[in-house]
Every structure is written in C-alpha cells, then in structure tokens.
C-alpha cells in the first residue's frame, strides 16, 4: 500500500516537473521566435543628457556651446532650447559619457549651468518602457544573444 502511494507521488512529481519544464521551454521558444532575426534596437547605445543654464545665453555663448559640444567624441545631436534655457545632446555611450561631455564642453565655458540628473526615485515613475532587469527582460536578452 505504501509502495503504491509512493509510486503515485513519484509519478505525479515527475509529471509536474515535466509540465513545468515544458511550459518553460514553450516560453523560451516563444521568445526565440519573437526575437529571431530582430537584430539590435536602432539607436541602442544613443544616450541623451541635458544641461540647464541659470541665465539666458547670448549669441556668442550659444555659438561657442554648439562648437564645443560638436567637437566632443560620439556626439550625435544637439538641441538648444532657448525658451527653457537648456541644451539636450545625444551621444554614443560606448564612446563618451554625459559627465565627461559636460566637463569638457560646458563646464570649461564658465557659465552658470547645472547638469540635469535623474534620481533612482524619478526613474520609478514615468512613461512605461520594458524593464530589462525583470526576469522576463533578462531571459529575453539572453535568448536574443544566443540565437542572433
């Protein structure tokens, strides 16, 4: 009697583990089909940074700022907002960093400016984008790297 019960438990466990494994396999295959040949995201490494100016810039300063920023390595675009007195620039984050660009292009101009920083708390809110640190996000990137 006990033997039979053990047998039953054993087979139920094998069944459950098998089911879990097959469901996981389904998930992996689904993600695989989804990301296969998808290639990398466009602009994958393009990062944006912003600096706020405490007072409006004159035309000479604007020209210098544009040329300073344009000379930095990896810079992709510069957008100057004269209404809110700030500049937004994008760059390749494999070639440069926001702080180094700020130091070399803006700080050396000796104008009152402040780099825009986003706190971890700010990041908890805002527009929804897929969270790459979730289990699903990590699994997706692992599979994508494996098959592409």
């Amino acid at each position: 009697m006990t033997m039979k019960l053990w047998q039953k438990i054993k087979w139920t466990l094998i069944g459950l583990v098998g089911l879990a494994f097959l469901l996981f396999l389904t998930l992996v295959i689904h993600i695989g089909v989804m990301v296969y040949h998808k290639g990398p995201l466009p602009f994958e490494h393009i990062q944006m940074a912003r600096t706020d100016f405490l007072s409006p810039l004159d035309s000479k300063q604007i020209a210098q700022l544009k040329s300073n920023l344009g000379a930095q390595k990896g810079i992709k675009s510069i957008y100057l907002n004269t209404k809110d007195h700030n500049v937004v620039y994008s760059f390749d984050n494999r070639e440069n960093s926001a702080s180094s660009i700020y130091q070399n292009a803006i700080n050396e101009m000796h104008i009152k400016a402040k780099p825009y920083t986003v706190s971890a708390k700010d990041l908890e809110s805002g527009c929804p984008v897929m969270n790459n640190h979730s289990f699903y996000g990590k699994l997706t990137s692992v599979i994508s790297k494996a098959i592409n």
Partner: protein
Amino acid sequence: MKTSSKIGLILIPFTCILLCLSSCHNNDKDDMTVIPTTPLYDTLGWFIQGATGQVAGQGTKMIADPDNDGQKIQAGRLAIRTVVNKALGIIASDNRLAVYFPTLLAEVGDGNTTGLAHLLNSFTDFVQTAVSKQDVYKGPDMKTVHNHATFARFGSADHPTSNKQDFDVFVGDVAQAAQSLNVPASVIGQLGTLLYTTEGDIAYDAD
C-alpha cells in the same frame, strides 16, 4: 499506477505545448500576408525616400535602415521614427514634460541599451500602429498607463493623471519636431489629428 495514466501524464503537457506552438505559428502566417497600410503611412514613406514618384505602396516598402547596419525597415516606419527621435529631444528639454520621461535622461552604464532606445522603439511602434493600422504596438493601453491608480509608474498620488495642457504641449513638441524636418504642414495636421484621438485616454480632463 497504470501505464496508460503514466502516458497521459506525459502526453497532456505535450498537447499543451503543441497547441501553444501551433497558435504561435498561425500568427506568423497572418503576418506574412498583405501588410496593412494607409494613405498617410504611404505619404510618410514617400516623403522619407525623397518625395519623388508615386506615393502608393511607399509606406510598407522595405528599405535599408540608415541607423542600423544591415537591417531593413519599412519606409513609413523610418519616417515615423525620424520624427519621434527628434521629438524625444524636444520633450527632454521641455520643463513641462521632462518629468514624465525620466528614462530619457537617465544615466546608463557604458555600452548598455539606453532608455532613449527603448522609448524610441515603443513610441514608434505606437505611432506606426495608429498610422498604418498594422498591429505592431504590444504595450499596455494608453488609458491604463496614464493614471497613477492603475499604473504606479505614472505620476504620483498628488498628481495621478496628466491633463489637457500637458497633452497640448506634447503634441506641440511632436509638431515642432516634424516641422524642423520639413514634413509638409498637411501631413503634420493629419498626424496631429491622429494623436488627438488618444487624448481622451491620456488627459483626464479631455472634452
């Protein structure tokens, strides 16, 4: 235990998997048939390719992606992505909107995929779905994610929803981006009308 029930234990999960896989396969088949398009999507595709020749069919035409080596992209999508990319820069500089898009200006480690890339992609998906009637946007619906009560990442307890004024600023920024790229005014007008169809879901005080 009988052999038949043992077999059953193994067969049932397999049947589940097969069902899942076959449903997946059917979706792929649907994608292979004619890709939906609209006159506006064709116009955008025609515009990004230099605005010459006939307009029809230019939206879904596959062309080389200038910003992604070795990849192809629908011309209409490329046009939309170009406008969205420009618009995100303007939005990040806009004091009224930057708070809603912290991911755009977040510091990302060297060589990691940036928030800009993710937002650009999902935003392009959303606009492409709206313009072309293709089903590419897979994210949550707009009403759910623009209310702190239903989507914790949006706003705060004090400021749970966005309002009409925010939405006007947003559409204004997108229009400004399109203008700076010399998109014809009539096309911008159509894009604006399309964006305003989502206003009811995004701004709590919309008419």
